[in-house]
């Protein structure tokens, strides 16, 4: 707890020493490269997206004027449907993937087997980055309509269909669950055995420990994991494009159709408006997460 001066989040609380944070102009100077980088790599594209989303350039005269029609269109009909579809899919996969990931991580942490732990973490690191068209094709070859497992186990007869909302959920879980394992294992490691012992000394059972100590301490990490999973699923594009094409409406697919297709012309600004919608949704999710994270980050230092 002696390092409280370096963690600005823990001002005047648990440590007891209400030390003033020494924050002169020099610390700001050190952050300057980061701020410049952020401004350049996030600010400029964001500005371009926002500008394109609210303006229209006449192709012939070249005149640019303000308009709300792109944003309005992005919130109607099939475009709205795709936003809703994306949020549904992301929330569901993040929830299921989060729960599965925590269970796996808890099993690994409590097993105390270094070999198992190493193997699980390595596999998670690989699988969490296995996405895009290769993943889609791996699934097609395994459990697609003429996939090996589908034919061996007659999955089609059991009602299995890879090219549906359910199928897409399963594919997403394949890389979201390992991602959750990766982010939650450090947090589980941070749960000190002393806390459990203290709880037991006071007569708490396993459930009571989790209900009143474990989960509240873990809550921000869990929520952080959920947010990360949500964002990953929300932004995923290539896997879905290769698997379901247009039959599960997703906003990233809609943006791709509008920006880089051979059929629809003059949809670029609607695509930018959809991008802006996505940023707003991501912002809302972050707005829930950040204050909570701040509340209990101090326990896990």
């Amino acid at each position, binding site marked *: 707890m002696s390092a409280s001066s370096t963690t600005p989040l823990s001002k005047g609380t648990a440590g007891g020493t209400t030390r003033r944070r020494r924050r002169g102009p020099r610390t700001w100077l050190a952050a300057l490269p980061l701020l410049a980088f952020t401004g350049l790599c996030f600010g400029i594209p964001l500005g371009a997206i926002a500008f394109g989303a609210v303006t229209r350039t006449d192709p012939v005269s070249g005149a640019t004027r303000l308009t709300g029609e792109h944003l309005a269109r992005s919130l109607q009909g099939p475009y709205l449907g795709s936003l809703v579809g994306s949020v549904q899919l992301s929330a569901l996969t993040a929830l299921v993937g989060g729960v599965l990931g925590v269970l796996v991580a808890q099993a690994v942490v409590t097993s105390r087997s270094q070999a198992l732990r190493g193997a699980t973490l390595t596999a998670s690191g690989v699988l969490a980055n296995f996405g895009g068209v290769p993943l889609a094709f791996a699934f097609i070859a395994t459990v697609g309509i003429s996939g090996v497992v589908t034919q061996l186990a007659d999955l089609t007869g059991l009602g299995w269909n890879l090219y549906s909302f359910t199928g897409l959920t399963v594919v997403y879980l394949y890389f979201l669950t390992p991602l959750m394992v990766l982010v939650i294992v450090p947090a589980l490691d941070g749960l000190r055995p002393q806390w459990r012992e203290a709880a037991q000394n006071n007569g708490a059972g396993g459930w009571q420990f989790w209900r009143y100590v474990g989960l509240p301490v873990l809550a921000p990490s869990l929520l952080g994991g959920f947010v990360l999973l949500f964002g990953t699923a929300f932004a995923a594009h290539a896997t879905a494009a290769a698997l379901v094409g247009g039959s599960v409406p997703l906003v990233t697919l809609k943006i791709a159709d509008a920006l880089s297709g051979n*059929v629809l012309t003059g949809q670029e600004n609607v695509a930018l408006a959809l991008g802006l919608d996505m940023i707003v949704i991501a912002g809302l999710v972050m707005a829930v997460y950040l204050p909570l994270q701040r509340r209990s980050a101090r326990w896990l230092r």
Partner: protein
Amino acid sequence: MLSSSARRGAAVLLSAAVLTTLSACGAAPDQPAGSATADGKKTQPGAATSVADFGGLEGLVAAAEKEGTLNVIALPADWANYGEIQKAFQAKYPKIKISAENPDASSADEIAAVKSRKGQTRAPDVLDLGIAFARSGAGENLFAPYKVTAWDKIPAAQKDADARWYNDYGGYVSIGCDAARIPNCPQSFADLAKPEYKGKVALNGNPTKSGSAFGGVYAAALANKGSFGDIQPGIDFFGRLKKSGNFIPVESTPATVEKGETPISIDWDYLNAGYAEQFKGKGVDWKVAVPTDGVYAQYYSQAINKDAPHPAASRLWMEFLYGTEGQNLWLKGHARPVLLPVMTQDGTVDKDAVTKLPQIQGTPTFPASTELDKAKATLAEKWDKALS
């Protein structure tokens, strides 16, 4: 609001500067260097509207060789024989280096490259576009008018009256079918609805994005009492196929075809014919049928970037494509070149290649601009709902 006139002014200055430098080194030797203005002097390669402006083909070749480079974009080597076409051009004009970028780019990417790299030497010189983008690009004044030598032989319905774009090659919507897996291959759209094809029918992409999938929906509309102005019956048709479980939304690619995941694939006949050749002897017996009830043909178009960094080379490329050699090379890739009818008459056509094309009755007709726009709007609005 941006000061649009200032932007336009800058663009004009830039292109004038480019034209100036190009004409200084790019004019054919037998021509006067000409005044270095961009205001439509016929002696500038960028303003040439026919080969006569170069004093004949030799003049054009000389001017193009001086430029030394041709920037192309979105030409996949395995699509309509573009690999061989580029090699043949390179062999014929060894002094002109073809600089190819992003072979898998879409029409929208091509237009974006033209706009965003205006005035740069790495801007694309020539474009191979879907018809909708050829029309909208001409409307935005992005293309240079140029009449190739064979201009008069291109049917009026397949070219822009101002010569800013013209159709190059195309084909018919066809049904490819793996006869090794499917006992009776479907011959029409009506056949596709049969229960025996459950979980077997695919398109080559999402029709709001892929031109061939769009053609597939259009053809299905024609097969189901629709018209060029009314694509809805086609959307309904695929909605029914999805409900019955016949339609699978996976995009057919050479990989899914070879693996057998898309045993029936609706795609351009030249791509399906290409698969037949590609997978012969690999356990895939790919048969191609142009459906009898929904005949729909579509051609891609060529256009020259108005601000092409290599204006002479781009015009030479066009002359090559629309010459006998270029047209026959497309034909070799199972695509139907736009001059096929004329060449069949005058006997310059590659007869072997013609016999390999799927058989068609009658001549193709094409939707008008307004009909196409209406169909696209309907599709963008209704496709998701019909399929989900």
